[in-house]
């Protein structure tokens, strides 16, 4: 099959074209060791199917960024049959800069001039015929968004295959032309493929190239020293080449563009006007905060627009207690769209569970088997699936912000703050998304350029307490208030959120000074023009995410559910634990299970955190709940529900939806105290996240570093919870922790000085070589 590669600047409409070409057959494939997606799909509308590869968006073929190296290696080594170079017509000069580099490869090539419709609207025009002639490549005007001329583009591309293309360079006319020609001849003699491309890179003193052809590199350097040292660049060929490319573009290509009006900096476009408000000196950051609040409100609030607070009995007016409408739409006031979808799906999965249960009973299925299917498998999978609507709603909002170009402005506004913690402004969006769900947040880190910075960010994302952790916060703090009659549940919940953020920032600071050493990466970023988001693209994006999530729920999560069910329903002698009937309901005797004995075994580990051996004989439930949280954070409170039924059968006073009652029972049954409970929340919030997030982190960080990430989560959560417990319980350990912090800080500062010195030595050695 023919293979075409799409290459172009970021934000030039590459992915839009990819989707237009491949339609619904697009599939996303992750290549190992690659930080960015390289998508592959099939174009089926022509006479023959064509394999389309969407390369990462790049500005140049320099050896400095991973995306550029990937694109360069793909074109050089995999030898696509044709390169389709997407060029954003509204940003001609900078886009053609990459074109002049791609032209130096001898692969057949077509230029797709995108967004000419936007140009038309402005009244500007590009003389395509003239451009085609001067560039020496077929140029096709397209609109990727509307799918205009996409077929013509493919026909021209297939035509281009018929005649072999000779590599050309716009640099041949520049001062360095002779040096490039000389190097090209030398490489041709060595029978190197794509000699012109490599010759240019040699003259440019490209690090990768100099290593592969050291002799030719020396010859080129000698030639330049003898003949060209006196030009304005003083032998700095990298600068000279970039300069020559842009000069050539302005002289020969830009002149094909005629503007309706002369451009002036004072004249503001619609986009500029919007930007003036959105990034305003005083209003910019407050506007951002309001947008963030609105998004979370629309996704998670059970009191939409505060109707329930404004009109106290709003929910009661609108629907009868116990009806489906009440359950879905009205908690106290009106629910937000996110919560409505969540409830609707919850009701649906709950009904399916009931039908399953009734159906199995009807078939006369064994009670254990029906327990496995209904509670073990369906209950587990459904509890994870139920978060899909809110994740999608949150993702939709963030996709819109990204699509419109606002995200780039947020990074622009907040870079200054984030730099202090060793990350650039780009780290901000993934972190905020973490409050919703860690999985999309971790995937979102791909927009970050520096690999170490990205890994550090992925690691701290779980500390931004996600939606699934919210029940733990609410139930445990509610339990504390109910049993001990102290404090205020809201304040406890809120402080836990703050604790998460503080731990994240401290961790970033420590990591960026030790294992993930480095300054915040340079921040040189294009600010795209604002535009309305494309509906079709948004939906494709969402569908991609939904598919990913559902697949996971029915594979990895399903398997883990079966395992947990087995462990909590069977004894070590492979017999079922049996049932106990309380108030006409049957509960499995989880206290006799394998899980319980494992819980008792690992219980001492949690002693420094306050919920270990100091509790009475029932204390293992906290250990088990914490371990179950590793599967899904919802399991923590769910486990209290089941375990409470076994441990405190006489005291069991029925269930309550939010799990506060269960927690209160557990507190009574185990004799746990307030500091230990808070430490329990902290541990669950900061430790290894749920299965789905762990899998996402593994995908983003890579196998090798992933085991350190697991260790990092364990150490951080253990330390933070131990501090919370010991200080809360005994107060005096505060002195020890302060002393340890001072020692650690001094240690890190000293290590840094040492590492800096070593780096400097290394650089010196490298320079001498």
């Amino acid at each position, binding site marked *: 099959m023919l293979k075409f590669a799409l290459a172009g600047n970021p934000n030039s409409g590459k992915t839009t074209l990819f989707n237009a070409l491949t339609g619904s057959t697009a599939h996303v494939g992750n290549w190992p060791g690659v930080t960015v997606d390289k998508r592959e799909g099939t174009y089926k509308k022509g006479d023959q199917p064509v394999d389309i590869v969407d390369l990462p968006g790049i*500005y*140049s073929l*320099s050896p*400095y*960024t991973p995306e550029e190296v990937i694109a360069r290696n793909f074109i050089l080594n995999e030898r696509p049959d044709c390169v389709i170079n997407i060029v954003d017509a*509204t*940003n*001609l*000069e*900078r886009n053609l*800069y990459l074109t002049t580099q791609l032209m130096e490869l001898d692969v057949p090539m077509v230029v797709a001039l995108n967004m000419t419709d936007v140009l038309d609207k402005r009244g500007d025009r590009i003389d395509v015929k003239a451009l085609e002639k001067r560039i020496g490549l077929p140029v096709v005007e397209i609109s990727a968004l509307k799918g205009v001329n996409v077929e013509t583009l493919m026909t021209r591309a297939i035509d281009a295959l018929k005649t072999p293309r000779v590599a050309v360079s716009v640099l041949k006319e520049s001062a360095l032309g002779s040096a490039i020609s000389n190097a090209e001849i030398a490489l041709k003699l060595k029978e190197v493929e794509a000699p012109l491309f490599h010759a240019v890179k040699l003259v440019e003193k490209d690090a990768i190239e100099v290593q592969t052809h050291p002799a030719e590199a020396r010859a080129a350097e000698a030639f330049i020293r003898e003949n060209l040292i006196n030009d*304005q660049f003083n032998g700095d060929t*990298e*600068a000279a080449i*970039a*300069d020559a490319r*842009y*000069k050539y573009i302005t002289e020969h290509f830009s002149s094909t563009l005629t503007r309706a009006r002369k*451009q002036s*900096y004072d004249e503001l476009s619609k986009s500029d006007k919007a930007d003036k408000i959105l*990034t*305003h*000196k*005083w209003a*910019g*950051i407050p506007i951002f905060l309001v947008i963030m609040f609105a998004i979370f409100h629309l996704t998670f609030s059970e009191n939409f627009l505060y109707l329930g607070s404004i009109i106290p009995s709003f929910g009661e007016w609108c629907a009868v207690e116990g009806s489906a409408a009440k359950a879905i739409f009205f908690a106290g006031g009106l629910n937000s769209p996110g919560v409505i979808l969540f409830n609707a799906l919850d009701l649906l999965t709950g009904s399916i569970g009931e039908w399953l249960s009734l159906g199995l009973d009807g078939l006369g299925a064994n009670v254990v088997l029906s327990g496995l299917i209904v509670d073990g498998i369906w209950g587990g999978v459904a509890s994870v699936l139920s978060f899909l609507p809110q994740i999608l709603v949150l993702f939709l909002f963030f996709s819109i912000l990204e699509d419109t170009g606002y995200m*780039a402005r947020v990074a*622009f*506004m907040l*870079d*200054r*703050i984030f*730099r202090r913690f060793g990350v650039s*402004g780009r780290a901000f969006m993934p972190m905020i998304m973490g409050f919703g769900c860690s999985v999309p947040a971790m995937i979102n880190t791909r927009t970050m350029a520096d690999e170490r910075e990205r890994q550090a960010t992925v690691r701290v994302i779980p500390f931004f307490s996600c939606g699934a952790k919210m029940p733990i916060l609410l139930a445990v703090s509610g339990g504390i208030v109910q049993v001990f009659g102290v404090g205020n549940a809201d304040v406890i919940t809120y402080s836990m959120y703050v604790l998460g953020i503080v731990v994240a920032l401290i961790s970033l600071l420590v990591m960026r000074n030790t294992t993930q050493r480095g300054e915040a990466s*340079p*921040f*040189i*970023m*294009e*600010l*795209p*023009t604002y535009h309305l988001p494309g509906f079709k693209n948004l939906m494709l994006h969402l569908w991609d995410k939904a598919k990913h999530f559902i697949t996971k729920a029915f594979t990895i999560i399903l398997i883990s559910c079966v395992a947990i069910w087995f462990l909590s329903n069977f004894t070590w002698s492979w017999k079922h634990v049996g049932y106990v009937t309380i108030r006409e309901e049957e509960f499995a005797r989880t206290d006799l299970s394998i899980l319980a004995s494992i819980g008792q075994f690992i219980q001492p580990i949690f002693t420094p955190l306050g919920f270990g051996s100091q509790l009475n004989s029932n204390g293992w439930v906290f250990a088990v709940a914490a371990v179950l949280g590793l599967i899904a954070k919802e399991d923590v409170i769910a486990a209290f529900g089941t375990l409470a039924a076994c441990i405190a059968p006489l005291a069991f006073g029925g269930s309550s939806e939010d799990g506060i009652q269960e927690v209160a029972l557990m507190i009574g049954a185990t004799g746990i105290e307030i500091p230990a409970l808070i430490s329990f929340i902290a541990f669950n919030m900061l430790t290894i996240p749920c299965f789905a997030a762990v899998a996402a982190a593994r995908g983003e960080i890579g196998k090798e570093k992933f085991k350190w990430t697991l260790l990092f989560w364990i150490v951080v959560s253990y330390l933070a919870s131990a501090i919370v417990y010991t200080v809360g319980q005994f107060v005096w350990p505060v002195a020890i922790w302060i002393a340890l912090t001072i020692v650690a800080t001094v240690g890190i500062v000293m290590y840094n000085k040492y590492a800096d010195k070593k780096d400097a030595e290394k650089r010196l050695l490298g320079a001498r070589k």
Partner: protein
Amino acid sequence: MKFLSQLEIGEKATVKSVNGEGAIRRRLFDMGITPGAEVYLRKKAPLGDPIEITLRGYELTLRKAEAAHVEVN
């Protein structure tokens, strides 16, 4: 000597040379900051840094630290 980082909002200038080394320098070139290019300081971020410039018909943001590598007339 004047640098891109020292421009005032609304000020126009022409790039004279680009200092610095390695990846940052190359990045500046690749984004079109080459000798002779005209730059216009459009705005500064709410906290004063980074800055936003208009060049070659598009908007680019960079930190003052990076802009300090760019000498302008």
